[in-house]
């Protein structure tokens, strides 16, 4: 079953087209990076995939079924979302927040079983936050909050992970740590990952494939080397970038800023 299929999706907010005829398929175990300039429709595509929005035209299917046809609880066991800058009440502890990821598995009175606690503990260890589990969310740095959100999503034990800019607020060490972890989840657990990334270099380094959205249209989809070609980037970003193949990373592209 294909984790995520987007077919000829068009979406408009109040008559203003945000996505035009977008199609892509996400397969199990791959990391698909979604890139593009601000306002290109990346977050909208994630929200369509998560079922928050319904496409105006075309179809979105998660594991074969449109999001609206899934029971909410059942879908939450299959698909987890790391939203961008999401609100968590500051009075919640890290542990309490990550345990919310177990919500789709809890029984009538919401009493967790050992398996639930184990999943939450494992997720906290993966993101390196196990020592802070009693800390209150209001006392965390932006980067720590972002890692808590990722841990919460991993505690859901999903087969498909949707992430909207999971590395904002992180320093480069944690950016690499988080994206390496996401890759590991894809490779070792066969999770299908769709991740919106603002940083082209991170996207090029950690994605199996890239999808480039510009003005709501998917203008390139495939190997990072093919998507991030200099002519294409120049067409989108003007003369602000230079592109080099990286000798240390199988020729994946590196994008550097250039003085105008």
């Amino acid at each position, binding site marked *: 079953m294909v984790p995520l299929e987007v077919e000829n999706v068009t979406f408009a907010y109040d008559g203003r087209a945000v996505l035009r005829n977008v199609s892509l398929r996400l397969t199990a175990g791959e990391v698909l990076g979604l890139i593009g300039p601000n306002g290109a429709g990346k977050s909208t595509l994630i929200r369509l995939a*998560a079922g928050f929005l319904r496409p105006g035209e075309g179809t979105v299917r998660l594991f074969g079924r449109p999001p609206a046809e899934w*029971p909410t609880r059942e879908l939450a066991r299959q698909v987890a979302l790391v939203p961008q800058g999401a*609100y968590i009440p500051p009075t919640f502890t890290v542990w309490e927040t990550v345990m919310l990821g177990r919500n789709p598995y809890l029984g009538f009175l*919401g009493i967790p079983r050992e398996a639930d606690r184990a999943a939450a503990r494992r997720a906290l260890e993966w993101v390196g936050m196990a020592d802070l589990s009693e800390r209150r969310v209001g006392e965390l740095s932006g980067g720590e909050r972002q890692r808590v959100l990722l841990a919460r999503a991993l505690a859901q034990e999903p087969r498909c992970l949707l992430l909207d800019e999971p590395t904002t607020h992180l320093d480069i060490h944690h950016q690499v740590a988080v994206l390496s972890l996401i890759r590991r989840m894809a490779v070792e657990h066969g999770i299908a990952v769709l991740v919106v990334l603002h940083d082209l270099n991170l996207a090029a380094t950690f994605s199996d494939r890239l999808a480039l959205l510009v003005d709501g249209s998917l203008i390139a989809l495939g190997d990072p080397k093919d998507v991030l070609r200099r002519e294409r980037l120049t067409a989108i970003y003007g003369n602000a970038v230079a592109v080099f193949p990286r000798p240390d990373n199988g020729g994946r592209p590196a994008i550097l800023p250039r003085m105008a």
Partner: protein
Amino acid sequence: MRSSHNRERSSGDHHLEGDGHLNPFRRRRWPFLALASGLLLVTATWGVAWGAVSIPPGAVLRIIGHHLGATFGPTDWPPAWETILLQIRVPRVVLAGLVGMTLAVAGAVYQALFRNPLAEPYLIGVSSGASFGATLAIIFIWRLGGSGWNGVSLAAFVGALLATAVIYALARVGGRTPVTTLILAGVAVNALLSAATVFLIFSMQDAFRAMHVLGWLMGSLALADWEKVRVVLPYVLGGLAVIAGHAHSLNVLQLDEEQAQSLGVAVERTKGMLIVAVSLATAAAVSVSGTVGFVGLIIPHVARLLWGPDHRFLLPMSGILGAVGVILADSTARTLFAPRELPLGVVTAVAGAPFFLYLLRRQKREIF
């Protein structure tokens, strides 16, 4: 155009534990539930013992035990004690406990559902609808003095549910019911119904009836009997059971609605079910007690301040503390100026308002 959460990013209990560690209350919560249950039993026993005819707590336990088939100690109490206890005071204390429990749990649910610290059980129409219904009934039916679940209770119950249904329907936009719209629709309809109630009182020729309406509006359990307990109990227990089943969903709903959905909570359905459960339970409680203020606002805050925002704990704790609070308030109401009864709402307000103001001051300090 992402969904925004219109809530202050603080809910007041930062001061308690600023050093990154959880306070001891929150770290070990479950013993407190047992402690609070014990407190409820003591309060109930005391509430039953206290009154114009004072009955020693030991005798209270022996009489109730004897009645339940567990005789211990001497059975030489005056027969009048048994009648006073079993026919008057026990049903009254039980009813007070049920009302307090319902209001406090309802308040905790609405504060969570609307992500608003000022939410209370009457937020979307129960109180104003019940008041309007009861006032109409007192004017046109006039059976306030009757025992059991009389016309006034029925009118209050129906009024409460109708007002809630109207507000919910008005707030519904394109298949969704945004909480902000719901709160605002509630404020508007409440204002309208309150004005209508006041107008009814204003146009009453009979000062005696007007006094009765005012007495009802201030809350009273003076007419408590087993019949009222019997009528109210199914709604309260049913409502509480539904709420208990959604305790963890309420934790998830502390996030915004999109996060809640992605964590497996069917937001609109859950919201609808909880509103129905709370409305039924609260309407039943209000129909026998009149509008008792502040309990549903304050008790959940106390529980949240001390034990944190986990509703699996917060809801039972609020319920128990609410029962304790209203039993204490009602015992005070009927004994302080005996034989006259103080309106129950006056006691809860006098005890609760200063505390609420204190909470408001804290909020203010943090918002500005």
